[in-house]
């Protein structure tokens, strides 16, 4: 097995994961789009996490039960205390993608952020996220824009840094593949809008902070199994709502 180290950018220029992975496995489970998020070297000074990726689907044998997330075809183990991640999965693009969603979500949560079910669109000097559940019209909306303006039509990262809220081109998409120019920068979120479940494609008018929190909590990508991370996610949602109201 020929291992190599690649750097996965999770928060542009701020947080990366150094991944130790079998080279052939890596090329088999990533496509050209996903590879854009992996770099040969760490770019500048960054907060770094470590991820040992095993080809076989087996438990690491070290982490406790509440540090394991089992997905179909893979196991995710993490020790928050040691900032250590060990993930295993079968050689399958979709399973690897699911593992990446969990990894991104955990690391965003540790850094005041989360993944939001939303379509992200670049507008003027920032971006607007249109959040909604599956079938609410995120992809339909994203298709109306040049794909260079689309951050994602499925899951956008959201992070709070110094009282500003940012997103950036997402690793995850559904029907519209983002065609962003790879400048790897944070983009300020000007607004988070919510798509109506009744009137597909239309947005709901949200005037109260409580309603905004309700909708955010309904639409974030929840982390399963870990109470500490779940508690953190609720707290982050409140902090982010405070920036808009």
């Amino acid at each position, binding site marked *: 097995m020929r291992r190599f180290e690649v750097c996965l950018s999770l928060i542009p220029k701020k947080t990366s994961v150094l991944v130790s992975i079998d080279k052939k496995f890596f090329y088999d489970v990533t496509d050209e789009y996903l590879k854009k998020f992996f770099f040969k070297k760490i770019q500048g000074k960054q907060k770094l996490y470590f991820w040992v990726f095993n080809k076989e689907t087996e438990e690491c044998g070290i982490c406790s039960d509440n540090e394991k997330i089992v997905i179909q075809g893979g196991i995710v183990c993490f020790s928050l205390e040691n900032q250590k991640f060990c993930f295993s999965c079968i050689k399958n693009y979709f399973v690897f993608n699911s593992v990446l969603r969990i990894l991104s979500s955990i690391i965003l949560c540790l850094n005041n952020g989360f993944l939001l079910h939303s379509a992200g669109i670049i507008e003027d000097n920032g971006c607007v996220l249109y959040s909604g559940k599956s079938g609410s019209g995120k992809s339909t909306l994203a298709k109306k824009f040049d794909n260079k303006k689309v951050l994602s039509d499925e899951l956008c990262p959201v992070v709070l840094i110094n009282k500003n809220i940012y997103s950036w081109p997402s690793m995850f998409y559904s029907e519209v593949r983002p065609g962003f120019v790879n400048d790897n920068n944070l983009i300020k979120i000007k607004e988070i809008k919510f798509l109506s479940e009744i009137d597909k494609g239309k947005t709901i008018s949200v005037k109260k902070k*409580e309603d905004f929190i309700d909708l955010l909590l309904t639409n974030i990508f929840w*982390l399963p*199994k870990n*109470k500490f991370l*779940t*508690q953190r996610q*609720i707290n982050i949602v409140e902090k982010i709502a405070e920036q808009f109201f």
Partner: protein
Amino acid sequence: MKYKLNPHLAYRKIGEFLYVVDSKTSMLYKFNETAEIVFEGIKKCFDIDKIVKKIVSEYEVEESVARSDVEEIIKEMLEKNIIEVKK
């Protein structure tokens, strides 16, 4: 009969509601004031009588009405695995 909270719950009071998430299933629940009193009572190991007393003292409601509400909420919480019977 006494009850206890599901150990996997994460919760926070935001505005006038208590938001509760079961970290095992990722289910989100939003509690109004009465459900919050029941939840907090169970957290403090109160029995139903003590929870009912608290509701009667805080809101001007008859004991029978409060008891019926509390029993209904507890039934729902048990069904949703938010609480479990304390053995």
